[in-house]
């Protein structure tokens, strides 16, 4: 049994050494930072990650988050400078940069969140009280958020916290006035619809009137060209007639007159009273050619 006794003694010693070793070392992750406390007093701050040493049983370690944390402020109603009310909530992104101050001021994450939330609420009321709805609904919103961040950050510095960002999420009208907003939306839409309808009529009339006008112009232009063509035709014809008939105007008069007689007097409704002595009938009574006077 001597071997067993030695073995047990050795085993117990190893366990004690292991316990001491485990108690003397602690790890700090990349996401964490640590404060080493000795009997409750801050001894050391470890902001870098890795394997760390402490005196076992005498020193304690408090681990804080090193990453960016976020929190949301509950929705609250604020009155803006233009007396309109908005229900606003915001979120903050913050980081524990001074674990010592953090430990001294708030000690726990919950404590920090409480302090930050109340600070955010107050700042939101304060800053938004100096703006208008129009500002909130414009590019200046970014500036408003920056102003809020700066103020919350100032308030958070004593806590060992840097507020990286405060952003407004919701900024809505309260439920109680949504009816009037809906009324406003409805009337705006009705106005818009009426305008579209009127514009439809306007555009249709415009297009139709233009089309009518186009038609009129096209036809008038055609008429103009046609008239010109008529005129040209008549002019050319006149010229041709003049050229031809001008060669012997007297013969033309004779020729044309005969033609006219033929056309105007050749019908059945014409009645002639002729004298046998007329030139045309001269041979009717005087068949003897030799006794005749020569024709005129």
């Amino acid at each position, binding site marked *: 049994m001597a071997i067993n006794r030695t073995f047990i003694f050795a085993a117990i010693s190893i366990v004690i050494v292991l316990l001491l070793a485990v108690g003397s070392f602690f790890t700090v*992750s*990349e996401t964490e930072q640590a404060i080493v406390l000795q009997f409750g007093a801050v001894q050391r701050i470890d902001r870098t990650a890795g394997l760390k040493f402490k005196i076992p049983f005498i020193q304690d370690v408090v681990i804080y988050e090193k990453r*960016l944390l976020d929190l949301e402020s509950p929705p609250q109603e604020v009155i803006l400078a233009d007396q309109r009310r908005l229900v606003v909530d915001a979120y903050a*992104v913050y980081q524990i940069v001074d674990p010592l101050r953090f430990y001294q001021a708030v000690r726990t994450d919950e404590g920090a969140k409480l302090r930050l939330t109340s600070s955010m609420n107050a700042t939101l009321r304060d800053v938004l009280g100096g703006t208008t709805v129009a500002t909130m609904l414009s590019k200046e919103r970014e500036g408003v958020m920056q102003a809020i961040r700066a103020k919350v950050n100032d308030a958070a510095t004593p806590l060992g916290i840097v507020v990286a960002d405060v952003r407004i999420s919701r900024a809505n009208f309260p439920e109680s006035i949504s009816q009037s907003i809906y009324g406003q939306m409805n009337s705006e839409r009705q106005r*818009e619809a009426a305008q579209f309808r009127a514009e439809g009529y306007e555009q249709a009339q415009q297009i139709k009137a233009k089309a009518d006008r186009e038609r009129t112009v096209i036809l008038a232009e055609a008429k103009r060209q046609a008239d010109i063509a008529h005129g040209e035709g008549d002019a050319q014809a006149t010229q041709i007639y003049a050229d031809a008939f001008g060669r012997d105007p007297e013969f033309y008069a004779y020729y044309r007159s005969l033609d006219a007689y033929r056309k105007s007097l050749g019908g059945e409704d014409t009645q002639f009273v002729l004298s046998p002595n007329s030139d*045309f009938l001269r041979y009717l009574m005087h068949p003897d050619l030799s006794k005749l006077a020569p024709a005129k």
Partner: protein
Amino acid sequence: MAWNDKGGGPWGAPPGGSGPPRRPPPSDGGSNDFEAILRRVQDWLRDLWPGFDGGRGILAVVAVALLIWLASGIYRVDPNEQAVVQRFGAWVRTESLGLHYHLPAPIETVTTVDVTRRNQTEVGSRNSRESTDAGTMLTGDSNIVELGFVIVWQIRDPVKYLFRVADPTDVLQRAAESAMREVIGQTDVQLALNEGRGQIETSSAAILQSTLDRYDSGIYIAAIQLQRVDPPAPVVDAFHDVQRARAELEQQRNDAEKYRNDIVPRARGEAQKIIQDAGGYKDKTVAEANGEAQQFISVLDAYKLSRDVTARRMYIDTMEAVLTHSRKIVLDPAVAEGKGGVVPYLPLPGLMAPAATPTQKGQ
């Protein structure tokens, strides 16, 4: 000691274990239990390794255990992953694709992160776990829209993703909602509901990305996709009416264009007809003039050859043609002058009426 009665020990049956299955030794309680275990381990090792004896055997066990422990540091990284290695919590390196080794736990630990997966996070959807007005937003013209959207994102930098922001997905959602409200707050309601959606998606994604970059979050925003943008229920009808009015506008314009497309080409056709008719008239007139002129010239040429005869012939031809069809009365001038004592009676009505009397014909 639960494995005692399985007859194989924790690493299964020993190879070539042909001996009879070992029975657990009679337990007499207290420290004997411990000795029993030691004995059992020794027995088992002797089975495994016939030359086994006491102290060296323990050393061998420790060596094997050490080997197994060291081998536990081998790990593989898939193509879509990156592995972040921490030694006692501190970041030491990031590995990508392949087989790698890390010092075994608890010295080094490995976190693998999928860096190619497109994650989708919904904000403001109807079945979202958030409060009911998560998707209710104020527009630039003080109207209200209800919208839901999806953030498509992936991890760009695993180290930043793991070590910079405590709750990346929570921050992502909050920042996205804020960015979307900021953009909607500068957009008019009609634009948001209709043609402005692409613009809203791109600018909110840009704001979100710059916010997350400010947090050094290691998140890349691939896209923001609007799922639905609706007017609130109490005003839906009014919005639909606007849509109808728009459609009516389009329709009226289309009708007018139809009218225009109908009458203008017709007018052009009509115009062509008028112009062509006029051209035809012109050509016809000129051609007729030419013909007549030519005819006259021909006659004139013939007339010039023998003027008297031709003139006479033409006269007689004409008189023949003229008198052929007309009614004629040949009256001797002597009679007309009353030389024969007869006064000619010409009844004017009879002359006027073309219905000739037989007496006249007879004459």
